[in-house]
């Protein structure tokens, strides 16, 4: 199908529309729903843990299992080296940009060294 001069196959239009609808619905759902009742206190207490907990659950597998399932805890895993560097730098400097840029450098360096060895 031709949309504004761009060719997109039909199944891709269904896919992107469906993904957009589903994602927006997930992000928006709580707002209209919440007007009708108050969250229990325990639930609100738990929500404070959401940001660090969700991000950690994304970080750990991507660092320890960078290529899918087998757990890679060896120190020749550049993702692990980079992540440890990020933890150290984040803890010491408390500066987000510095943490990202420096740990990327450590990661790329480790990857280059291990590729050589």
């Amino acid at each position, binding site marked *: 199908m031709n949309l504004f001069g761009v060719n997109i196959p039909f199944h891709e239009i*269904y*896919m992107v529309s469906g993904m957009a609808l589903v994602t927006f619905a997930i992000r928006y759902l*709580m707002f209209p729903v919440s007007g009708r009742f108050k969250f229990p206190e325990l639930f609100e207490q738990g929500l404070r843990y*959401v940001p660090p907990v969700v991000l950690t*659950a994304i*970080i750990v597998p991507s660092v320890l299992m960078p290529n899918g399932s087998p757990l890679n805890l060896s120190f020749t895993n550049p993702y692990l080296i980079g992540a440890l560097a990020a933890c150290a730098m984040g803890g010491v400097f408390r500066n987000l940009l510095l943490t990202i840029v420096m*740990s990327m450098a450590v990661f790329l360096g480790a990857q280059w060294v291990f590729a050589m060895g």
Partner: protein
Amino acid sequence: MIRPDTPSPGRRSNLSLFFEGAKDTFPLVVGAIPFGIIFGSLADTAGLSFGATMGMSIFVFAGASQFVAMSLMASGTAWPMIILTTFVVNLRHMLYGATMVPFYKALNPVWKMVLAFGLTDETFAVAVNRYNQNDDIRGKQYYNLGSMIFMYLNWNLCTFMGLTAGKAFPEISRWGLDFAMPATFIGIVIPYLVTKPMWASVVTAGTVSILAGGLPHKLGLMVAALAGVAVGVVCEKVFPGKKEAA
């Protein structure tokens, strides 16, 4: 990113809040750049058209699920299954929405819809910190909007760059630039680690994310998140005294 000493001049113009939000999001934008470029550059190999790739970044705006969709696409998965997987991968954003409910309460539905659309991991993390700062500043939705628009423009620009210039570097996805995402997220998580319950919840989430990693459709993420939250809440009861502020 977290500055408890932010001066509180009482009233701030909406525009200055907007730019403050964009400024505080800058490190996360930097972290998202390689991610967006890789996404765009992978489209060709995955068999995704230019329009659909841009369409995803414009209308879906959820990096992790876009990558998952692309890899499913490459392995010939049917579109209804890809939509279902998107649902599961993005389910965590429902927790973000629930967290934002008290902060968005006074806003009209259009504001709520716009901000909800932009509730990515990054903008959520930046905005929730600002909302939690105990100052009397009104109009923090402009801060939230500034963060969201900066992320959105950057994400779409990088997707476009990957789609066009990325073709010149077909091996870019093997450079390991995907490490930018865990690096960014580690930088966000560390300032939270100040109380025992927070440590306990994060360690639990990390452990469970590995143990439950074998669950289909990335469901392990949700299981790990819920386990982490539960442990945090229980630990608050066990180690009372210091209340978690953030």
